[in-house]
């Protein structure tokens, strides 16, 4: 049940009517209703995995209470319980997401020595959304151990936080300290929330069906058959893929955030105009922010603290591990590891030159100068695009071959009318909006002070969605992670 489908909106209507009418006076009833809806939603995607979700939720609920109980009197036990939680969360993720891959890699290794391991048929079905809800569970125990939050005594509340249907399949990865307190009071139908939620859903829908799904026609035709295409087509496809990826995932995120807002709940932001970043360090602070901040708080900073006496080298090691983890989080494939390592190396270079660069920028007041800013934005975009070639490829040799093919054989490009006629103009609209947002925070189009402009923007976007969008309900790229 994807957000851009009729069935989802039927489901949403059935959920929200009782939520705002019958149950509006009792937050506990609203939470229970949301929990039931969330399990139904999750079960619709993958009912066999409901017991796993339920059991792991119970275990972490118990761990949270136990850690809190021991934090003061028995800090050692609290630490052990926290470690148990982290090992359990990571273990579940590892088992479902990576074990099959490692078994196969070992089987290949054995085979290369002439031994037959008979393991190549080993396969484990990965529960959908596992990369997202295990991260929520882990942050819950870590935050309690760090005494940043109190564990909730209300099991329904905790289970609702973990299974919350707008975000369970693909994030944003919410934090307990921000989300759970919102479940402590009843949510009323609020015009501002509904208006803003609707705007974000429409914008997200536009990004998904008018940009991502339109570009998909071109990028998949070229990149899945790159050996049949010339360098011009491949170049266009890799550039478009960056926009496709961004429109797909930020489109999903906008819709997830919008749906949550309709229900009166605020979830984490996931994107902050990443393609306007001036280096890739900034890019990683603005792209899939709910994942990168999670990794910063729970992996990068602890590693940095641990390695602090190694001087700057400790920091470089932490940066590298951090990015490789971000890469590998996407799945069991060496391409993701290389993608992370590639970004890790760039970030180490940025970190090593940070001080000098800052001084230089200050001395010549370069930061806001157009001739300094725009080339940097472009270079960052191109570096990100190279990373996404590795990211998209099905294996390492494919990514190298695509890059190699970009070096020779330019000619007339392959043309896909819908991608060019719809996708590219819409990308320009997206870029225009992002620049406006960046410089004049959100007071135009959908957020104009004038009602007539707001309504016109909505109508135009909806016309684009229905007339120019690809409404065949393409799956979101991030559902596979």
């Amino acid at each position, binding site marked *: 049940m994807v957000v851009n489908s009729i069935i989802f909106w039927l489901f949403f209507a059935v959920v929200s009517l009782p939520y705002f009418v019958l149950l509006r006076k009792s937050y506990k009833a609203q939470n229970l209703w949301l929990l039931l809806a969330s399990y139904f939603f999750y079960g619709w995607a993958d009912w066999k995995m409901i017991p796993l979700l339920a059991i792991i939720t119970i275990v972490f609920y118990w761990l949270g209470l136990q850690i809190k109980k021991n934090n003061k009197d028995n800090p050692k036990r609290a*630490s052990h319980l926290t470690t148990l939680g982290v090992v359990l969360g990571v273990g579940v993720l590892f088992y479902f997401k990576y074990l099959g891959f490692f078994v196969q890699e070992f089987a290949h290794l054995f085979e290369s020595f002439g031994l037959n391991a008979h393991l190549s048929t080993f396969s484990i079905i990965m529960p959908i959304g596992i990369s997202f809800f295990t991260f929520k569970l882990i942050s819950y125990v870590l935050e309690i*151990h760090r005494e940043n939050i109190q564990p909730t005594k209300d099991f329904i509340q905790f289970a609702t936080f973990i299974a919350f249907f707008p975000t369970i399949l693909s994030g944003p990865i919410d934090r307990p300290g921000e989300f759970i307190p919102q479940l402590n009071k009843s949510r009323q139908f609020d015009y501002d929330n509904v208006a803003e939620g609707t705007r974000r859903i429409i914008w997200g829908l536009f990004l998904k069906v008018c940009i991502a799904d339109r570009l998909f026609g071109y990028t998949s035709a070229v990149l899945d058959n790159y050996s049949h295409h010339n360098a011009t087509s491949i170049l266009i496809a890799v550039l478009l893929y960056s926009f496709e990826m961004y429109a797909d995932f930020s489109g999903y995120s906008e819709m997830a955030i919008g749906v949550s807002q309709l229900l009166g709940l605020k979830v984490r932001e996931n994107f902050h105009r990443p393609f306007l970043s001036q280096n890739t360090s900034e890019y990683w602070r603005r792209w899939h922010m709910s994942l990168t901040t999670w990794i910063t708080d729970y992996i990068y*900073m602890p590693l*940095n603290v641990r390695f*602090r006496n190694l001087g700057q080298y400790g920091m470089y090691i932490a940066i590298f591990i951090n990015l490789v983890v971000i890469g590998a989080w996407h799945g069991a494939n060496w391409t993701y590891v290389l993608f992370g390592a590639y970004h890790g190396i760039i970030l180490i270079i940025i970190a090593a030159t*940070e001080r000098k660069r800052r001084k230089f920028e200050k001395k010549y007041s370069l930061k806001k100068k157009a001739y300094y800013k725009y080339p940097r934005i472009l270079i960052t975009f191109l570096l990100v695009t190279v990373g996404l070639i590795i990211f998209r490829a099905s294996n390492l040799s494919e990514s190298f071959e695509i890059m190699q093919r970009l070096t020779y054989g330019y000619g007339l490009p392959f043309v896909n009318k819908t991608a060019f006629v719809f996708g590219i103009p819409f990308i320009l609209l997206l870029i225009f909006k992002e620049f406006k947002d960046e410089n004049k925070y959100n007071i135009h189009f959908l957020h104009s002070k004038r009602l007539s402009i707001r309504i016109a923007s909505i109508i135009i976007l909806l016309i684009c969605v229905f007339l120019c969008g690809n409404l065949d309900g393409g799956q979101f790229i991030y559902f596979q992670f």
Partner: protein
Amino acid sequence: MERQEIFDQLNEIFIDVLDLDECNLTDETSANDIEEWDSLSHIQLIVAIEKKFKFKFSSLEIMKWNNVGEMVNSIEEKLK
């Protein structure tokens, strides 16, 4: 050592590590208030504080801080 003295010493450390012209830390100051205070310089600050006061924080202590006030609480605790 008085709390104010710790703040004075921290101001010096912050000016030195973050290369600031001036610094007036309060209990509520956090990384959001100082542009130069990012995750990279945060670690350099910790190393500089440990060197100055001649003790080591535990990882958990460091991870618990949300602002300068909590940092100073940890330092006071260590100096007792």
